[in-house]
Structures are given as C-alpha cells and as structure tokens.
C-alpha cells in the first residue's frame, strides 16, 4: 500500500468519526498519534466484565467464582440472619423462633416446657461428587470418617437418652451396638440419615423441636439442661457469617450448660461437634461447610476434639441453597421461613426512614436563575484552568449554594475526567414541569450515561480569539451573554462552536427555553464526534426537554448520544 493510499484511509477514518472500524493497514505510529490527540476517536473496548472476572485467579472475586464452579449455591449474605437486629425489631416474637409447628406465638410457657434443642435430621444424598472438598474428605483418616463419627454419635445419643428411660447401664456405649452402628454407617450413603440405624437397640432419640408436643429434654449426661425457650438460645446468639472450611464449629457462649455444637459437612459427610457452653442449654451451634452451604449459630470456637461427639446438629439452618433442594429437613427455619411464620403485626418491620421531601416548586423557581449562573461560572472557572481549578471551582459553587441554603447544580466541565463526569449528580435545573425531584431512576441513569467523557482536553481554550469572546461574555448575563457566545457558534472549529452553543444555551435557559433548545440543536448539528463539548449539548438538550415536560424526548436525547 502506498503512502497516498494509507493517507487516504487515515483521512477517511477521521472523517467517519466515532465508531468507524480501525483501518488495519495503517502504521501504529499514525494511529497512536490519533489516539493521543483525539481519544474520542478511539474505539471502545470489547471487553465485558464477565471476561475479566473469568480470568481472576485469586482474591475475593476468585472465591466467588470458585464457589459457583463447584456447583454449590453461593453463600448469600442476605440469608444470614442478624438475630439481634431481628429480635430487636420483633420483641414479642421470641417464641416463634425455631418453631414450625403450631406453637402459639408468644406462648413462652408452652415453649419453656419443651426443652429439646437437639434434633436428628435426615440428610439427602449430597449433590455433586467431584468437588475438592469432597476429595479431601475421601482422604481423611479413619478416625475422621463418617462411620466413626456416627458410631460416636450413637454412643452419645445413648448417653443422652438412656438415663431418661431408666435403662442407662453406664457411660460406655455397648460395643455391639457401636459395631452395628459403624457397619450401618459404612453401608449407608454418606449423607444418609444419622438417626435410627446408628442407635443401639433400645435407645431412642426423639427428634427435637421447640414445640410442646414433640421431643424430650436433651441430656448430655454432664449437666441437666435447664428448660428455656429455644428461641432464647438462638436469639441470644449472633449468627456467624464465616465460611467454614469443613468440619464443625461449635457455639461457645458463657453459660454453664453444655449445649449441642455445630454441624459441618464436607461434600455430604457430616462432622458433628459438640458445642461448648451455651447460656440456655440449647444447641444452636454452628454448622459449617466446605461447599456444603450450611452455616448458622455462633460458630466462633472450634470444638475441641474431645468434645466431638456424634450428636446431631440442632437448629441447623441452611444458608444459600434451599433446604428442600438438599433433602434437608430442619426445624431451624431460614429467615424467609421465620418471617413468614411471624404474624403480620410482628413481621412488619420498622417503618422506612423518611425521605427528604423535594424542594417546593416555588423554591425551585426562585433558585433556577442562580443555579444557571453557578453552572456557567463553575464551568468557566474549570475551563480557565482545567486541571487545578476544578476542585476550587466546585468548592466555590458549593459554598455559594450553601450560602443560599440549597444544593448547587454543578455541571461537569469537559476538562474533568470521565469518572468524575460519570458520577456527576443527575440534576436537572429546577423549575417548569420537569424538575430534579421528578427525575426518575431510569432518566437519571440515561442522563448520567450522557455526561461527557473528557477524552480530549480543551486545546482551543488557549487560543486568543476564544479567550477574548469568553471574557466579554463573562461581564454580561442572560440574553446579552448568550449573544456574545453565539459569535462563536459558526466557528469552523467544531469543538469551539459546540462549546459556544452550550454556553449560549445555558445563558438562554432561564429566559428563553425554546431558543436555548434551538441553539443546542444547531450545536449538535455541527459534528457527531463524541467530544465532551457535544456531550454537554446532549445533556443540556435532555435537561431542557425534561424541564418542558417532554420526558420521553428527554430520555431519547440522553440515550441517543
């Protein structure tokens, strides 16, 4: 390709404006110069956020991705119950905690009569088979296996239950029953129920609920639990939000009564930890999981190995995946369940914070002229010394606004960087049928997107001819000011013309909106390149239309950029 051909292609590309495909045959130096001097001519990146996140290997975003790839539901922060806050908001609903039966709400006595905190919960087979956590589980030593754990569970269950039925023969579990339980556990799937088959003959464990009809007091043989509402035990504790790496974590709270600890699962196997002390003697321990998505309770202190016992988890609350999907049945309710169980008068949360009322239309009208002047003065101050004056100008405008007891409408200067422009307040000058208070979310979003991106600095600002005109305009106001700016509206330099149009339209905005709109239209017609000056016009056009009550047109203007 000859130099002439390359030059012609380069010229054609520049003429085509934004969005034109890059000419591939051009030298990189030529393109680099064009991008340096006119970043608005550069193509937009074709990289999506998903592309970026897909490559993240470490850090918090990698954790999120790994969780999703394991096939397990991501742990939803929103599913973690802030029990303290909930209880504070529902002071009379304590007895509804952890109950799914017909226990009358508020019937504390009825709940007090039923002390069971422990509950044997059947598990469905685990979902997913090849997760790293599951692999790690397979490599665990024999003493950490599920069978051994279940055998210990059987022993502990016997210790808990047998004294009540008067058949306790001693603290040592029956070895035959233990062997039977181990055999049963080995034959059973990893997440099979840990209930009856693991129990010695004659032993029985009553599924614990907080209802008065079911269950019996939990007795771990160490200390007789003092009856208290399960709701207390749960509500007194704070829910841990930590993602446990496997195994259980047990609740550890001051008390004197030994409660039941946490439940941990790894790929379907369970490791139940006897908890430390709980204030009310009820197990509300933590359950953790590596890819299992079980969390609840005050899981702050790992259970000592000596305390590990095959005691079923109590009140384990699934976090993330719905319990039904995992075959889990628990009396411990998730937050939605609990909320649904709360009577209407209790479920009603605190009243939302009052929203500040928008200023009245009269006040907006009174402020409109000053707001317009502030916009212009701020923009001029920014453009006079774009880089260093911007903050001072903003402060000046804000101080001016504060002195007038209102919020300033600060129009971003093209000299400011794109991120700042992108976060500029979506404010439409008040007054008229449309006002800032009426700017709904979609309109505000469209307007924000239309705000200028300062890809090109205001090179023209140093030219003497432009400075002279701006100097004359600064001494005037209203229509006279606009007329001076309009002297540059037909300037052959498109950026100068568009900026002059924007300034003139701003000056006309308060006195002649229709003419201001025409000035904006003329400025837009001068060029289609995505410069900050054109973006200012786009935003202003939308503002003017919005103020005139032509909201659909305003949205279209903001989104047409």
């Amino acid at each position, binding site marked *: 390709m000859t130099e002439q051909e390359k030059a012609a292609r380069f010229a054609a590309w520049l003429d085509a404006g934004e969005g034109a495909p*890059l000419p591939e045959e051009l030298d990189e*130096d030529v393109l680099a110069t*064009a991008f*340096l001097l006119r970043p608005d001519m550069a193509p937009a990146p074709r990289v999506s956020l998903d592309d970026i996140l897909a490559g993240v290997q470490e850090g918090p975003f990698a954790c999120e991705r790994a969780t999703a790839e394991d096939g397990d539901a991501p742990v939803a922060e929103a599913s973690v119950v802030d029990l303290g806050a909930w209880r504070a908001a529902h002071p009379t609903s304590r007895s509804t905690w952890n109950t799914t039966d017909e226990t009358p709400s508020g019937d504390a006595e009825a709940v007090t009569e039923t002390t069971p905190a422990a509950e044997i919960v059947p598990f469905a087979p685990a979902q997913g088979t090849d997760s790293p956590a599951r692999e790690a589980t397979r490599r665990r030593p024999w003493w950490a296996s599920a069978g051994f754990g279940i055998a210990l569970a059987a022993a502990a269950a016997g210790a808990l239950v047998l004294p009540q039925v008067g058949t306790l023969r001693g603290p040592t579990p029956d070895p035959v029953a233990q062997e039977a339980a181990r055999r049963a556990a080995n034959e059973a799937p990893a997440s099979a129920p840990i209930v009856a088959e693991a129990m010695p003959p004659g032993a029985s464990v009553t599924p614990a609920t907080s209802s008065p009809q079911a269950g019996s007091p939990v007795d771990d043989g160490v200390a007789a639990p003092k009856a208290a509402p399960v709701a207390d035990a749960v509500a007194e504790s704070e829910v841990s939000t930590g993602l446990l790496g496997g195994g259980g974590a047990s609740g550890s709270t001051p008390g004197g009564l030994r409660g039941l600890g946490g439940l941990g699962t790894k790929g379907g196997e369970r490791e139940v930890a006897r908890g430390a002390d709980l204030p009310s003697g009820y197990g509300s321990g933590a359950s953790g999981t590596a890819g299992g998505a079980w969390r609840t309770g005050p899981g702050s202190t790992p259970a000592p190995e000596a305390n590990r016992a095959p005691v079923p988890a109590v009140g384990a609350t699934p976090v993330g995946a719905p319990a039904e999907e995992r075959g889990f049945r628990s009396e411990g309710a998730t937050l939605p369940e609990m909320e649904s169980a709360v009577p209407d008068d209790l479920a009603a949360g605190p009243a939302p914070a009052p929203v500040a009322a928008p200023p009245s239309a009269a006040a907006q009208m009174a402020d409109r002229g000053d707001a317009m002047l502030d916009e212009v003065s701020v923009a001029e101050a920014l453009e006079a010394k774009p*880089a260093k004056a911007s903050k001072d100008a903003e402060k000046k405008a804000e101080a001016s606004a504060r002195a007038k007891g209102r919020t300033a409408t600060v129009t971003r200067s093209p000299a400011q960087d794109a991120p700042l422009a992108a976060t500029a307040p979506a404010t439409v000058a008040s007054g008229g049928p449309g006002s800032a208070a009426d700017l709904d979310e979609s309109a505000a979003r469209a307007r924000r997107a239309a705000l200028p991106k300062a890809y090109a*600095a205001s090179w023209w600002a140093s030219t003497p001819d432009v400075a002279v005109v701006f100097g004359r305009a600064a001494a005037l106001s209203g229509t006279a000011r606009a007329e001076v700016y309009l002297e540059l509206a037909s300037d052959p330099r498109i950026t100068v013309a568009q900026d002059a149009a924007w300034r003139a339209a701003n000056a006309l905005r308060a006195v002649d909106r229709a003419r201001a709109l025409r000035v904006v239209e003329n400025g837009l017609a001068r060029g289609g390149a995505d410069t900050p000056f054109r973006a200012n016009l786009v935003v202003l056009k939308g503002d003017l239309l919005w103020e005139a009550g032509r909201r659909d047109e305003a949205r279209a203007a903001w989104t047409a950029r």
Partner: protein
Amino acid sequence: MLEGLRRGERDAAATLYAWYGDCLFREIILPRLPRREAAEDVLRDTFRIVLERIHQFSPDSDRSIYFWMRTIAIHRILDVHRADQRRRRLEDAVEAEARVHGEGATEEPDLDGEARRASIEQALGQINPRYAEALRLRLLHDLPREACAERMGVTVGNFDVILHRASAAFRTAWKEPA
C-alpha cells in the same frame, strides 16, 4: 465501591469498570499499544490484576485508584512490547514512561491536564511546523479536511499525506510528561 471490591461484590466491579474501563482503554492503552486486540488483552489483564490485588491498594495513599490502575496498565503494555521485539522503539518510550511513574514518584502527576497538554505542545514544537499545523487544524481544532487544506494552501489529497506523515513524526517526538 472499594469496600465492595474487597468483599468481592460484582456490582462494585461493574462500577469500577464503568468508571475507568473506557478512559483507560482510550487514553492510556490504545495510544501506547494501537492494536485493538492487544490493547483489549491489556485492559482485561489490568482489571484482572486490580481485582485480584485490590487488597493491596490503600485509599489512604496520595494516589488515586485510577493512578494505580494506570500504572498497572502501563506495565502490562511494557510486557507486551517486550514480547514483541519488532516494536523496540515503542518499548523504549513506554519504559521511559514507566520510570517516570515508577516507585520514585511521590505525587500523582496531572495526567490529563496541563502536563499532558504541555507534552503535546512540546512534541508539536519538535516536528516540522507544517506537520504541527496540520495536526492542530485537523485533530485539535477538528476542522474538516477541506478547510484544513484550504488554510494550508494545498489540495485535500496533499493535506492527507501531510497529516499522515505528521502523525508518524509526532509519535516519534512525543514523550510522556515527566
């Protein structure tokens, strides 16, 4: 947003990308690596590194997160140039830039304001005056090529060639502001 990034919130990442992705690509990466695919790879890598190492960024420092991202992007560009020996001259330029904005820098330079403008004016002063005029008229003042040609007293075709040569000459003369 920073807190959200540290918690791994996707919305925060989306906000960061919306704020800085476009301008980083257009203003920092493409002018130094004017190959779109390669530039997009650098943009992707830059944000990947930012998200992976977000805990290393301290908001208490005197540099903005944009400066941090910009430095990462420039180093990634340097890596690309190192892998491509045919672009030795560009590599030198980027290396010089990396030195300027390396660990020794204590203040965030005025990247998009007067310093950059001064560097461009300096480069324009180093090239042929007619080249500089062509660049000013067409790219800075955004005049149509016909008007530019008329002002320079040449045909449109000749102006195109002058502008093409001027662009190559400018890139040679331009250095990142110190």
